[in-house]
């Protein structure tokens, strides 16, 4: 009964915390294990290539990926600005920052797509080696998470522009924000462990 947003904020819970925010943090706890397994597989297999094949660290373009990382970091900023906007009742700013966040996310994804196309042209694919399998599965799933996030952000923006996202729905923005930041911190880990560490 407490699930419906209409009444959820008014219904007392045993801890005083909102069910949906609690649910999102619980879910993020499990996502740590999800990405932990993906990252560990990569760390195990990172140098595992057949004779004569490229190892991933030889074809990384660190400056390029750094820009990508920077873009994603800034999208966390715009996300939190979006939340701050709705918390003070400014729905126009909310929409602007939501769209910015989604746009930065799309820049990140395009960057990844371009980067991967380059790798594939160099012969580094998901099939060419175990390292390739591990690299693309990890970054692929991360990218999929970002994409889902972009979809949710654009949905929020659209709901807001049709008047269906009101002050009561602040928590929805907060929840999607939490998801978005999580996706960002996973990238922080990936950037270091996958790209920078030799």
């Amino acid at each position, binding site marked *: 009964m407490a699930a419906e947003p209409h009444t959820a904020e008014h219904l007392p819970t045993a801890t005083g915390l909102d069910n949906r925010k*609690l649910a999102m*943090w619980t879910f993020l706890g499990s996502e*740590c*294990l999800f990405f*932990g397994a993906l990252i560990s597989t990569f760390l195990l297999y990172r140098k595992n290539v057949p004779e004569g094949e490229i190892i991933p660290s030889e074809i990384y373009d*660190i400056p390029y990926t750094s820009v990508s990382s920077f873009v994603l970091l800034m999208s966390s*900023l715009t996300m939190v600005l979006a939340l*701050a906007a709705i918390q003070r009742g400014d729905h126009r700013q909310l929409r602007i920052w939501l769209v910015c966040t989604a746009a930065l996310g799309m820049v990140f994804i395009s960057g990844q797509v371009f980067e991967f196309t380059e790798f594939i042209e160099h012969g580094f694919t998901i099939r060419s080696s175990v390292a390739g399998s591990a690299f693309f599965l990890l970054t692929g799933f991360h990218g999929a998470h970002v994409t889902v996030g972009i979809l949710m952000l654009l949905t929020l923006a659209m709901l807001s522009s049709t008047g269906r996202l009101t002050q009561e729905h602040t928590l929805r923005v907060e929840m999607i924000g939490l998801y978005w930041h*999580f996706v960002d911190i996973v990238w922080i880990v990936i950037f270091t462990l996958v790209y920078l560490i030799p």
Partner: protein
Amino acid sequence: MTERTDVDTHERAHPGPREYVKIAVILAVITAIEVAIFYIEFIKDSAAFVPTLLLLSAIKFGMVVLWFMHLRFDSRLFGRLFVAGLALALSLFIVVLLTFGVFFK
């Protein structure tokens, strides 16, 4: 919110856009440092390289979680749920990688 309560605690209680931008700048600077030391040969080849990178990224990680995700100001329960998953992931997978001899080069 125009309560004339202790302004200081109000600011600590809830960061505003200005604080968020400051955090973002720090994050950008740390990222720049990470990339910079990647290109400075004598750091990259030293034993301190990996620990430094790990530390820097841990700081970034922590800052996003504590400020952007608001964990610093929210109920401890959220933090515990998240840290439980994180700690479990770290311990389990370090053990797995140890059995594969990953950390011994």
